[in-house]
């Protein structure tokens, strides 16, 4: 009982920002599960990470203009996705390079916007908030927006689920089956951008890859079918976010500063632990 008390400290369940964070984290993890699984299977982790970094531009623009950061994240993620698609659609080979160049310009721009934010307003630490995030800082008024964007990403993925799966696993066969492959790829890119933006809001722009890739990579090691992989990824993602929130709440009494450890740190560590455990679980089965 005392251990339970030590883990779930008094006030945890009645704290409204903890409740909001729990809902937000769960929604984001659920959206990231299917999109993340497709991202890993398609080998598009770099694109996922690049869009996440680019969202930092939107986050800093939102800081400068004083609008909701989520809007900035979403707009910039979509812009990054379309820029990559426009520049790199011609050939598959140079795609990583194009992603890198677009990413570089996005990060450069966010450097400027963050600099302007710190000079025109007296807010310091905008850079840290945008890049490393804090789930507790998200205002509860953005929750409906989060749920709306999350639902649209899920619907988009659901609509193209079968052709997307086919084109992810066997692109040649998919292109032989008919046109529309480009459209399927585009729909996937949009849902990737949406889920990256949501994830950036939750654990910060440059850490958001953790929620997208981590649970999906772990789940794909454990599961035999894509559907099951998505389910496992959702469970791992939600568990990591919730456990991260609880640990961060507990850490307010921890050394050195007595001001709490960042939620993002816990979520990332837990996601990583899940991936390492999945590797251990997978190994004997493969040798037998």
């Amino acid at each position: 009982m005392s251990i339970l008390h030590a883990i779930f400290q008094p006030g945890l369940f009645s704290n409204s920002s903890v409740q909001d964070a729990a809902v937000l984290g769960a929604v984001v993890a659920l959206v990231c599960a299917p999109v993340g699984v497709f991202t890993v299977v398609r080998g598009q982790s770099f694109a996922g990470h690049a869009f996440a970094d680019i969202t930092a531009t939107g986050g800093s623009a939102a800081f400068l203009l004083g609008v909701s950061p989520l809007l900035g994240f979403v707009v910039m993620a979509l812009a990054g996705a379309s820029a990559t698609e426009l520049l790199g659609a011609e050939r598959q080979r140079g795609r990583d390079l194009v992603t890198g160049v677009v990413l570089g310009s996005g990060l450069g721009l966010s450097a400027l916007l963050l600099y302007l934010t710190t000079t025109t307003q007296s807010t310091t630490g905008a850079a840290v908030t945008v890049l490393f995030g804090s789930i507790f800082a998200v205002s509860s008024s953005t929750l409906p927006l989060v749920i709306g964007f999350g639902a649209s990403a899920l619907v988009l993925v659901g609509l193209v689920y079968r052709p997307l799966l086919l084109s992810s696993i066997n692109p040649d066969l998919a292109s032989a089956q008919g046109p529309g492959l480009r459209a399927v790829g585009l729909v996937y890119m949009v849902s990737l951008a949406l889920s990256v933006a949501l994830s950036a809001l939750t654990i910060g722009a440059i850490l958001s890859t953790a929620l997208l890739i981590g649970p999906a990579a772990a789940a794909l090691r454990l599961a035999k079918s894509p559907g099951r992989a998505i389910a496992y990824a959702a469970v791992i993602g939600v568990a990591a976010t919730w456990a991260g929130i609880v640990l961060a709440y507990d850490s307010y009494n921890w050394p050195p500063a007595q001001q709490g450890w960042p939620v993002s740190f816990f979520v990332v560590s837990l996601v990583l632990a899940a991936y390492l455990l999945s590797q251990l679980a997978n190994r004997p089965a493969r040798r037998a």
Partner: protein
Amino acid sequence: MFSGLFSGFMVNTWLEASVMAVVAGAVGFFVVLRGSSFEAHAIPQGAFTGAAGAGLIGANTLLGVGTFCLLGVVAISRWGRRGQHDVVTALSLITLLGIGSLFLSMSTEYSEQTFSLLFGEPLAVSSSDLLPTALLGAGCMTLVVLLFRPLMLSSVAPELAAARGIRPARIELLFLLAVGVATTMALPVVGALLVFSLMIGPPATARFVTDRPARAMVVSGALGLVTVWVSITAAFWSNWPIGFFVGTFAVVWYVIGRCLARWRRKPGPGVVGARRHGVAVGSTQ
């Protein structure tokens, strides 16, 4: 307007930035050739944690960055043998950044310093940094020269390289080490997030200009030099973060390179070329 641009400590910056641009151009040639943009992005970004950690315990920034570069390189190349390469790179990166976020939360009073570590600070070079930077640069260039033939071979024709007894895993490790060393030099000046722009923008453009590896390296080094020189001047003058200029220049070079390549390849424009050409002409008039 430009008084003080070459005075005192700015000389250190000019020296270091020039060495760094040449080294990044040479290493970047292989980054582009191998399609290793993600690794070239992940290693510097992860090394930010080293800089933050060094700030926390009061150690030398260069040392911290170097240590975490090494950690990133080892993690990516060791894990990468078993898992999917891009996934492993992403996971190595977020591991380092996760630790970085913890370091940052422990030292909140340094938010300005954090910003310059992420986005660059043209005045960050002290005289005591020059010798280690020069040594790192020389080491990195030696590594590139030694690796040139096996790296070329294993990048262009992996089967042939394997037949000659070149072990891809070892080559990969040494190549990532070169990226790590270039990062360690460049990070304090250009910032963790934009180092990779120097390793991608100029070399990618150079490959549009020429097909010969050695010439491409020279061109990419020259473009890198122009990039950092103009960026330092602009950052000094406007007080804007230097990373902004470096990132923007990388895109400008790349777009110019692509236009050049298209213009060269199509003397008599085809259907697509004609349309695009028409659009371009129409927009300039």
